[in-house]
């Protein structure tokens, strides 16, 4: 029990020590505390994984957290197959990125702060995946958002970073709003928010409805959609994807760890975790799949024309997350988690590689000002190629297996599935194109930056490249735990491992279909490479021409479909304007304060008039008195 508790507790300790003493005592030795802590977590996580493979699913309550009336929730851990995989992913990538950060953040004024926040993040993420009830999940959910906020805004002196941090947090709040309501509704429905109890009773409420504003809706569908709201926010799906590209304002290790490998996949994890609920609602599943598919293609199209190296990868992340939801939506939960797991490696690799590039170019992120870097940075170039091969789904690398699995499962999913498969395949084509475009623009051709920069070009130090190499190994071999049955009998070990939690996919197709899907995805991967090669190596003037030819489309994509502008114009600005002009300016100051100050003013005005009755002349008072006396006497005489 202590072992499992220590997994999240070690990073928490690292956070506490660093944040309290970092500024004055630890300073640039912060990694001496953070790295061992997270590495320790990794070791414990591996041991926990072993326990699970040995068949010991752990579900422990540590103490009562909130008790109120019939509401009761504990702080407790559930370590099953799904959790143990997530533990491995989170702690292994964290460890590598922590080590990478030693080099990358070297000399930064907030060095200790960086490691403190990262440790806090690891703690939160571990709480998120280890939670055994929805409220603790929500705790981790919000806490990772908090760390994301801190780390995006790490260089808070930049306005763009500060804005991006705030944006990320608030956009996430929209999703969490639904998530929180979902948690409440789950309790009201099942009388508990423990995973085990909820999932075992999941089917007991099928067919019940909930009345929302006079219309009846299916209860489970509502619950699932509310939960999915949270996932949409956290995993940057349409329409709440806007925060993730901006989040690239944070340091690159942060982008790699939080905004590629771990935190943004929390949504995927959560939906997979809740599969007993989602399985009961066809509508919710379709929503998940369609949102995922649309996001995949939507983000990929934006990625085609972006010039900021990190933003391209960011849109790629959004797109890949879309894939994962697509998988979940068609019921292939293990495929989604499988992709989550492989994606973590190659996407972290891409980010860290781009970090290496940015580091070499002294914080230049515009690809149009790069080029020809392969001869200066061979290791970085090599790992980039590996990651790109992996993400585009070239057979033999990690990405191929997971992506293929998703597309195949989609293909088997009936008419909707076919449509989703089409979306996925097109997105794969686009992915291949923009990934190769990135490589070609960055590493091939001639260097387009300043001479100053060219002079300083160099390969990054070992502390950066070694983690890259480790990740590259992951990006190649991580997929071999999920070899499709077509290629190897019982090759899909991860699927089988996860089956107790996530169940088996519902549909099985023929070998021919599987071959066709596989061939299709390989074909589009090569196609993407070919187009990119034609456009950026063979005839570098072509992109410009194409851009000119489809000017409106290019502008639309380049400006990310104007979603940010749309939100700003229709939501943010009106709310701020309304709160200033209408709520504060009119209702508060004019109406309420008007009444509050108006009543006394009215009384005052009346009194000012009325007090003139007091002339100050003695005889007037005397007259009034005499009249009063007369009135009384008159009454006594005549009325009695």
């Amino acid at each position, binding site marked *: 029990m202590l072992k499992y508790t220590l997994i999240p507790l070690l990073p928490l300790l690292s956070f506490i020590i660093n944040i309290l003493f970092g500024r004055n005592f630890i300073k640039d030795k912060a990694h001496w505390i953070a790295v061992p802590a997270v590495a320790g977590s990794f070791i414990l996580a591996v041991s926990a994984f072993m326990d699970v493979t040995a068949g010991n699913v752990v579900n422990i309550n540590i103490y009562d957290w909130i008790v109120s009336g019939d509401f009761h929730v504990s702080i407790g851990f559930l370590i099953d197959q799904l959790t143990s995989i997530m533990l491995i992913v989170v702690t292994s990538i964290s460890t590598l990125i922590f080590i990478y950060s030693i080099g990358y953040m070297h000399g930064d004024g907030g060095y200790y702060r960086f490691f403190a926040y990262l440790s806090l993040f690891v703690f939160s993420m571990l709480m998120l995946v280890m939670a055994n009830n929805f409220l603790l999940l929500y705790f981790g959910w919000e806490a990772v958002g908090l760390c994301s906020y801190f780390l995006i805004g790490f260089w808070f002196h930049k306005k763009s970073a500060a804005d991006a941090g705030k944006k990320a947090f608030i956009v996430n709040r929209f999703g969490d709003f639904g998530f929180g309501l979902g948690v409440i509704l789950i309790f009201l429905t099942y009388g508990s928010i423990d995973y085990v109890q909820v999932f075992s009773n999941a089917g007991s409420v099928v067919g019940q409805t909930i009345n929302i504003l006079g219309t009846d809706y299916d209860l489970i569908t509502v619950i699932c959609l509310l939960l999915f709201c949270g996932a949409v926010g956290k995993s940057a799906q349409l329409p709440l994807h806007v925060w993730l590209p901006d989040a690239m304002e944070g340091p690159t290790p942060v982008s790699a760890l939080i905004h590629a490998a771990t935190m943004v996949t929390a949504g995927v994890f959560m939906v997979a975790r809740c599969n007993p609920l989602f399985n009961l609602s066809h509508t919710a599943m379709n929503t998940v799949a369609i949102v995922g598919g649309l996001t995949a293609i939507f983000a990929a199209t934006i990625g085609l024309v972006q010039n900021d190296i990190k933003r391209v990868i960011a849109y790629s992340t959004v797109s890949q997350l879309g894939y994962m939801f697509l998988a979940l939506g068609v019921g292939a939960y293990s495929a989604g988690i499988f992709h989550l797991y492989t994606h973590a490696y190659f996407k972290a690799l891409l980010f860290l590689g781009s970090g290496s590039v940015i580091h070499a170019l002294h914080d230049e992120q515009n690809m149009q000002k790069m080029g020809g870097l392969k001869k200066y940075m061979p290791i970085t170039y090599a790992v980039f190629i590996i990651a790109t091969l992996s993400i585009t789904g070239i057979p033999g690398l990690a990405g191929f297996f997971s992506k293929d699995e998703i597309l195949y499962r989609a293909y088997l999913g009936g008419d909707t599935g076919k449509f989703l498969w089409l979306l996925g395949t097109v997105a794969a084509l686009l992915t291949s194109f923009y990934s190769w475009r990135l490589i070609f623009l960055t590493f091939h051709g001639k260097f387009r930056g300043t001479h100053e920069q060219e002079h300083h070009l160099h390969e990054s130090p070992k502390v950066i490249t070694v983690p890259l190499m480790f990740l590259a190994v992951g990006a190649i071999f991580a997929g071999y735990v999920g070899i499709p049955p077509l290629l190897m009998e019982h090759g899909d070990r991860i699927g089988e491992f996860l089956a107790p939690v996530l169940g088996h996919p519902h549909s099985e197709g023929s070998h021919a279909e599987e071959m066709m899907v596989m061939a299709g995805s390989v074909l589009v991967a090569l196609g993407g490479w070919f187009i990119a090669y034609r456009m950026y190596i063979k005839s570098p003037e072509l992109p410009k021409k194409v851009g000119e030819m489809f000017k409106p489309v290019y502008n639309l994509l380049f400006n990310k479909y104007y979603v940010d502008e749309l939100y700003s114009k229709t939501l943010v600005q009106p709310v701020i304007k309304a709160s200033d002009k209408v709520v504060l300016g009119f209702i508060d100051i004019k109406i309420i304060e008007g009444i509050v100050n108006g009543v006394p003013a009215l009384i005052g005005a009346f009194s000012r008039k009325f*007090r*003139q*009755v*007091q*002339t*100050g*002349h*003695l*005889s007037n008072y*005397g*007259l009034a008195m*005499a009249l009063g006396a007369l009135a009384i006497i008159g009454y006594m005489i005549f009325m009695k």
Partner: protein
Amino acid sequence: MVPLSWYIVLSAIVFSIGVFGFLARRNLIIVFMSLELMLNSVNISLAAFSHYLQSMRGQILVFFIITVAAAEAAIGLAILIAFYRNNPTIKVDEINLLKG
């Protein structure tokens, strides 16, 4: 015998004259004197009642009224002087410090 009502009517008439003086005159000193006049008219009726009812109380009351009248005159006139010093007029319609 003089009937009691005669005294009372006399008292009423003198009192009314006092009231008239109090309400009509401008000179503050005469206003004061009107006040004394009213008190005296009351004294007349009290003494008359005392006599006709063969009770001493009316007369005792007259004593007290005279006492109070003396005190009132002393204080009132002192105020008058104090006031006049700051604001040299004793015309009632020119004094309106209490104007609202």
